[in-house]
Structures are given as C-alpha cells and as structure tokens.
C-alpha cells in the first residue's frame, strides 16, 4: 500500500470514528443494561406475574379482553394486542387516548387471558430502563434523534471498514494477536486496539448495520404504509369513517384461516400506524425459528370481518424483522447475552483506545511543531 493511500484511509478512519465516538459510547453504555432488560425487570419486580391457575382454565375471547381493557382504562381506546411465548397466559395490551397516538404516549399493560385481570408493566411505561431505552433509541428527540443516531451508525460502519484496511500496513511485520507490552503504553494500546478491533469485526458490523436499519424503522414503516398498505386498502379510500367496530372475538381464527401455518404476533386495531381506519390488521409470524421474525399482515374489514387482503412483505420489512434479534442478541439463550455484553464492553475499549491513540499522536505532532 502506498503511503499516500495509507494517509487517506487514516484520515477517513480518524474522522469517521472521532465524530461518532461520543454517540457510540452512549449507545454501548445504554445498550449494556438493555441486553438484560428481561432479567432486570424480573429482579426489580417489574415483570408481570400472573397467578397459577389450573391448566384447563378456559380463556376469554378477544372481545371480552377488549372490554376488560376498556374497563381498566376508561376513556382510552385499543391500539394493540400482542402475544409473547414467555407468557402464554398473558396478552400484552397497548392503549391510548386515540388509536393514532404516537407510541411513547401509549400505555402498555398485560391482560390475563383467563380472567381479564389487568397486570401493570411499570418498566414498559417509565422507570430507569425506559430512560435507557429512549436514550438508546432516539435520545428523547423523536425522529430527528433516531436519524442522527442512524447517521452515527453509518459513520461507525465506515470507521470499521477503514480500520480493517489500515490493519494491513500496521500488522505487516507483526504476528496475529501480538501485543507489545514492553515498549510503550501507546504501542500496547495500539496493538490492543488492532487486535480487539479485528476480532470483533463481524459482531460490530452486524450490530452496527442492524442498528442503522432499526433506527430507520419509522421511515420503513411509513414507506410500507404508502406502498403496500396503500395498495391493499385502496378501495376504502373514500369510505366513511367507522362509528362502531365489529367485535374482535374471532380475529385470530379468521387470520389463521387466511394465513395457514402461521402464528399471531400482534393485532393492530383500526386507526393505528400498522392498520387502516377501516381494518384490523393481524400480524402473523412464521412457525420456524427463522421465519418467526418475519411478519405477514392479514387485513380484516372492521365492519364486516371479511379478509380484505393478506399482505405481501416488501424486502425492507423483512430486513427490519431480521435486524431485531441480530441487534438485541436475545436469540441464543443466556450465554449469548453474556457474550453480547462482553463484546459490547470490548467495543467500548476499542472506542476509548482509539481516542487515546489519536490524542497521543496529536500531542506528539504538536510538540514536533513547537520544536521547529
């Protein structure tokens, strides 16, 4: 590699990393507790504890659950029902003043599917973990915050790529994983920066890129609404607003018939950003491990309960679905979570050592200039 080329890549590496470092440090620090949010909620007693009832206890139908939810929060309307394998007896319920209310102003709780009892989920609506999540997702700045973080993620990916290019000239005369400890602190940290940087390459790229995709989720959902959803509900464009909804009772059966072999993930009630003004949207997921992250919406007319359409999935919604596990690290048991945390910590070390190396070089070159 020519020295001119090395200087150029070095410039790219220095500046892409310096610009994104503070944001990446914040993301890495807030991401650490989020890896274990399930366990932390449990420890704090913030996770739903449903009573143990006989296994054959009958379950309420969906319309009965809707009524239970409305009784629990009078004056609010249904936005979503969601299902989670971890709590087969519970239905996650999200309500707000209007169906179109933005997610951060909604209220999330759990309904016991057997008796309609509401169980509060404090950590889903506030508290320390929610602060961590909001910092991590948008720094409390809404869409501009998300897009800024997405841009920082792109810089991070560029920093990784330029770092890999620079690995070659730096390591030409060194054996893999050699750390020179006896020369100087700078050389020791340079070697550690190179070693940790290169071995965590795949993980950092995957978490970085999936983070960027997730940060663009609002834009992807908006695109899906105009493209796919828009085409599916075109006949309803001029239909008058609904005054009353048909009961939700059989939504799951109707959706299961329309999308055989799939399982329900969540229902979006009419008027939310995942449905239309005239439809219930039942989002079905695949039944294998891999396809359980890919969602297919079944649009059900909220007046007649006829299936209007079974949605096609555009590629970017699949990319968004697959990004989630790959970003959260929640799909390989506790050992994976621990490794995720270790790799997160190692990323912090690479970021910190990078700033240190830049600082030491800068001070050295300033000194040489002074000496002249």
């Amino acid at each position, binding site marked *: 590699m020519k020295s001119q080329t090395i200087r150029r890549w070095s410039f790219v590496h220095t500046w892409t990393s310096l610009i994104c470092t503070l944001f990446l440090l914040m993301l890495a620090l807030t991401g650490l507790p989020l890896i274990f949010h399930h366990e932390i909620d449990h420890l704090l007693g913030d996770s739903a504890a449903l009573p143990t009832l006989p296994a054959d206890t009958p379950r309420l139908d969906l319309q009965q659950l809707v009524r239970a939810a409305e009784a629990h929060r009078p004056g609010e309307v249904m936005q979503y029902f969601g299902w989670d394998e971890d709590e087969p007896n519970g239905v996650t319920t999200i309500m707000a003043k209007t169906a179109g209310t933005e997610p951060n102003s909604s209220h999330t709780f759990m309904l016991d599917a057997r008796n309609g009892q509401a169980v509060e989920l404090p950590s889903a609506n506030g508290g320390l973990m929610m602060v961590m999540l909001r910092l991590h997702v948008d720094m409390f700045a809404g869409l501009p915050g998300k897009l800024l973080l997405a841009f920082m993620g792109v810089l991070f990916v560029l920093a990784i790529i330029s770092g890999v290019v620079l690995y*070659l000239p730096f390591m030409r005369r060194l054996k893999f994983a050699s750390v020179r400890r006896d020369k100087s602190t700078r050389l020791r940290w340079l070697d550690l920066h190179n070693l940790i940087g*290169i*071995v965590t*390459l795949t993980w950092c790229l995957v978490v970085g890129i999936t983070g960027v995709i997730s940060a663009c989720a609002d834009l992807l959902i908006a695109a899906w609404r105009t493209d796919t959803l828009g085409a599916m509900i075109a006949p309803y464009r001029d239909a008058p607003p609904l005054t009353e909804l048909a009961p939700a009772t059989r939504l799951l059966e109707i959706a299961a018939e329309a999308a055989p072999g799939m399982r329900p993930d969540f229902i979006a009630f009419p008027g939310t950003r995942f449905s239309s003004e005239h439809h219930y949207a039942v989002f079905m997921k695949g039944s294998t*491990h891999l396809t359980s992250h890919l969602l297919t919406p079944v649009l059900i007319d909220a007046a007649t309960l006829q299936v209007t359409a079974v949605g096609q999935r555009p590629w970017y919604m699949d990319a968004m679905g*697959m990004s989630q596990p790959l970003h959260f690290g929640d799909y390989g048991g506790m*050992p*994976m979570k621990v490794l995720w945390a*270790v790799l997160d910590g190692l990323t912090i070390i690479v970021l910190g050592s990078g700033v240190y190396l830049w600082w030491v070089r800068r001070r050295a070159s300033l000194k040489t200039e002074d000496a002249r």
Partner: protein
Amino acid sequence: MKPRSSNFWTVFGIPVLIALLSAAGLFAALLGDGAWDALSWVGLGIPAALSLRGLLGRCHG
C-alpha cells in the same frame, strides 16, 4: 516490501477465519435452539476470548 498478495493472507488469514466463524455463529442461532445456539456461543466466544487474552495476558509476543 513483499508482493501484496502473500502479505494479505499472512496478515488477514486468521482474522478472516474468525470473522467467518462469528458470522456462522450469528446466523446459526437464528435457525434453532440447542446445538444451533451452542454454535453461536463458539462463534462469538472466540473473539471474546482472544480479546480478553490480549487485555489480561502477560508478555507473549
């Protein structure tokens, strides 16, 4: 200076192998539980172990 190609694989041989193992591990756990998860622990465990060895180890190299 040596020709670039031989240089490339001496420097990048092991890192490429580690990168591929990590990628395989990340993908494997998406496919199932049990053994599939274990593959991801190996794939991500290698980078973690090598880094920690570098950070904590004494003089070797």
